């Protein structure tokens, strides 16, 4: 499968949304084009991403999967403007990130992008509420009270708002992180293994919440995960191997995902 065919397939899949009664045609929320990322120089150079092109559509919940070391985190970091790229472009909405300077990049992250990391998402000195409002506060923007209440109710943290992270469970902490990512209504949320540290119940809480924010608020989310179960909460799974997009699956089920993953692993083994 060539990269070109991947792109065509992706676009076709997006277009096919029009046939679906429940789905409106989706605008593109973000696009990475011909993204290449090398670490190190000369002989020691590692190619983490190799000419990746990928469109991410608004209001869609996308999972990125692949074997360890396949470049998932690197893709996220580059797409989110946290890391520089070796070649290629990243566009969030209508802004081309790769040409931005540090200051503008910080603003884009603050205003257009939300983050959820695997761990250590919260500032320990701030309360849950302050953590949730942090990106807005940094930007000096007023929170939309109704929206804030809605988000908080959805994540089920209403009575935990004045607690510090140290007083919250891991699942609750991740939900606070989700709320924080949502509350500034970013154009896109990147989540790198947000449930990696959680047991299945807490994981399900977080995934359920992400799902609802896509369904109810039309949020765009991209999530890296290793767990086929987690991937089955999403609309679309993109498979990476050796820094390349190798496959893609719509409306995934755990079994289907597992099937594809096996295929990838055997391919990885062939290397």
């Amino acid at each position, binding site marked *: 499968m060539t990269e070109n065919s991947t792109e065509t397939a992706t676009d076709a899949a997006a277009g096919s949304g029009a046939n679906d009664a429940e789905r409106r045609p989706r605008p593109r929320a973000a696009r990475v084009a011909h993204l290449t990322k090398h670490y190190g120089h000369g002989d020691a150079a590692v190619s983490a991403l190799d000419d990746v092109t990928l469109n991410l559509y608004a209001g869609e919940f996308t999972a990125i999967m692949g074997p360890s070391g396949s470049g998932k985190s690197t893709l996220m*970091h580059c797409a989110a403007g*946290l*890391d520089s790229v070796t070649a290629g472009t990243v566009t969030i909405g209508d802004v081309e990130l790769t040409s931005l300077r*540090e*200051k503008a990049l*910080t*603003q884009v*992250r*603050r*205003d257009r992008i939300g*983050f959820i*990391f695997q*761990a*250590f*998402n*919260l*500032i*320990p*000195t*701030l309360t849950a509420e*302050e953590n949730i*409002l*942090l*990106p807005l*506060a*940094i*930007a*000096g923007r007023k929170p939309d009270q109704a929206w804030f209440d809605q988000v908080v109710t959805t994540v089920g943290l209403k009575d935990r708002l004045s607690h510090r*992270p*140290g007083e919250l469970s891991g699942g609750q902490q991740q939900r606070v992180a989700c709320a*924080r990512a949502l509350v500034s209504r970013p154009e896109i949320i990147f989540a790198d293994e947000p449930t990696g*540290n959680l047991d299945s119940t807490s994981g399900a809480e977080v995934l359920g919440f992400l799902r609802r924010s896509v369904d109810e608020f039309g949020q765009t989310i991209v999530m890296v995960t290793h767990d086929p179960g987690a991937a089955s909460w999403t609309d679309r799974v993109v498979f990476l191997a050796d820094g390349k997009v190798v496959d893609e699956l719509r409306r995934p089920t755990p079994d289907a995902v597992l099937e594809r993953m096996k295929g990838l692993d055997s391919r990885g083994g062939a290397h």
Partner: protein
Amino acid sequence: MLRASLASLLARKLRLFMSAFAVILGVAFVAGSFIFTDTLGESFTALTKSSAGDVVVRATGANDPEQPAAKPVPASVVAAIADVPGAARADGNVSDFTTFVVSKKNKLIGGQGAPGIAVNHTGGPAAHGVEASRLVKGHWPEQAGEVALDAATAKAAGYLIGEDVRFVSAGSEATFSAKLVGTHEMTGGSMLGASVTVMDTATAQRLFQKGADQFSDAWVTAKPGVSQSELRTQVARVLPAGFEAVTGDKVSEQMATEIQKGLSFITTFLLVFAAVSLVVGTFLIINTFSILVAQRSRELALFRAIGASRRQVSRSVLFEAFVVGLIGSTAGLVAGFGLAQLIRVLFGRFGLDMSGASLVLNPRTIVASYAVGLVVTMVAAWLPARRAGQVPPVAAMRDDAVLREGALRKRIIVGLVLAILGGAAMYLGLVVVDSNELKWLGGGILGVLIGVALISPLVGRPLVSGLGWIYRTVFGVVGTMATQNSLRNPRRTAATASALMIGVALVTLMSIFGSSAKASIDDQIAKDVTADYVVSNAIGQPFSAEIATKVAAVPGVAETARTRWSPVSMSGETEWAQGIDPVAVRAMTAVKTSSGDFAQVGPGAVSISAGTAKDRGLKVGDSIQLGSQGQVLAARVVSIHEEGAMVRSGLVTDLRDLESLGLPDQDSTIYIKRESSATASTVQAGLENALADLPMVTVKDQQAFADEQRKPIDTMLTIIYALLGLAVVIAVLGIVNTLALSVIERTREIGLLRAVGLGRRQLRTMLRLESVVIALLGAALGVLMGLGFGVAIQRALVDEGFDRLVIPWAQLGLFLGLAAVIGVLAAVWPGRRAARVDILRAIATE
């Protein structure tokens, strides 16, 4: 385990450096003080070695350094001792300590405490055949009108060989000049700012021995093979009564001891600052290790999880402390050299010029530096090490492992007890005890400072919260986070602030002390001195009585009142006597007495201060004995006075009594009243004109006189400020250190903040705000405590003429303002580091 901690230590060189940093600063101060005082002592010792012959003959009891002019040794005695069998030669020395060179620019060279030495050239060597001084250029003076100067003074004054040098002197001629025929260099090395003028014997005798063929003392040089003590015995046999022969070694030793005594003030002074900086340093070290342990809590927990015992974990921290202490002490010792050099330059500014001496490193300094560095570091690391042992293994699993700070209660109790004990010691020192007052006071102040430092997490909270409110309002979430970060480790914030607090408290104390002292002096002068002009020597040297005669002759001068100062023995103990012209002095000042009548002071009738009366158990009507160099005079106490600006000694005598005791005819101050009909400016011009060629003395009106009296206070304050400034610098570096370490500690948090959109500038603002909290907290506490100390000390000293309390509010406000600036500056480097944090790496940091 040890290897693991060594590896971890080396893996984080920055951490190692920063924790060693606090040690370096503390040790540098101790080493610097020692090196400086040793250097000072050494240069004097070298000097004393070349300042005595094999055997010295002098008037009995003349080794009291406070006795200015000993009974002279007649030429006949010198001739007699030259004939003893063991003597190669004997030379009579004439020496004077009040002869100063006037530079080409009409400025007095030297002064500021260093004597202007004048001696005759004899050619006689000092003990053990050492030449007392070496000719550099030209030749030694051979006849009247020729002089040789030490090369440094000649250069400073701008005189070349062959030129005429002008002198002012308290000798029989107030001014004279002579041709420079040679320059020389003292064998003993640095002269510490003193000038040494060499002249021929006849001239020296004319100027300093009233023209008689007599000497200050005599040096006898031993024939080869004759020991000092043999020669001494032989010389002693031929000496008339009233003279003694002393071996050169003993004289040098006596001189050295006297000098050490005189210098002990400086040594104590510097060691006090070393102690202050060590206390400050200890705070920083404790702080640093607490932070390090907190940072490493995950690593330590991992050790525990894989089976290390508590003891092993504690020991690994102590081991780290040992390594840090060792490195810190070594670097501190090196830094101490730099500091000693700095202090030397500083003291040089105020007249103690030691540029000729090289820095001395005694084994004692090395031992003290390592002892202090290692002990302080280990002790400071002990508490954090114990806490490290208590890290639960489970902390390794937790992501947000926080080492819980223990309850503050124990600390607060200890702090309170210390502060109360310190307060009690201060009270004892100020009010109750009569001896060792300064030790009680100093110990008390230290106790209070440390006590308050311990409770500062508590007392500082309102201030931090108050600032927090302002921050939140002005800086929004960045302000909130800054406040929260300051409150997150109250001990850390408090300890860092305490280091600054100590310096600021002492600076505040000194500034209150200084401004109160100056105001008290002004008050006293305004109240007491009705004289219109004062003639005095800017550097406190006595001047020839000839000057008083000149002054009295100026038209418009109604009255002159001479006073002079001299140490005399009063019933066996030395006392500084103020000799006055009673009638003239009474015309210019109203002396308050508690009993007796000051008007009766005259020959054989003295007045003593209430303090002297109490110390000596004397009352009006008692008889006393005044003595100087064997001369004795009976006197009676006729009044008990209060000290004022003009009459300000514990013992006031008639000038004529001092003359009868054979003390030199030299005045210290002349107070002048003008005729009511004369105009002020004309009289002043007349006086200035009369004294124009006498740069040694100056005429001042009352205002200028008050300024001059205040000047020594300013000089002292400047030195103290400069040294305290170093303590403040240590504290500021402590803030930098703490902030930088906490930036490292919070790398992940900073990465996260940056990831969610915190700009670099906002990040720097946050750190700056944190830094300002610490600095302001320290300064505010320091100013408060300094205020307390200053008021307490002034209150306690009201009886000693320290009757005005002046609080320099503007200056205190300035300290707070400066603290804020310091806070901003201290955050520059940590802020830069934080801004450079690589977001991705930060997020990945384990």
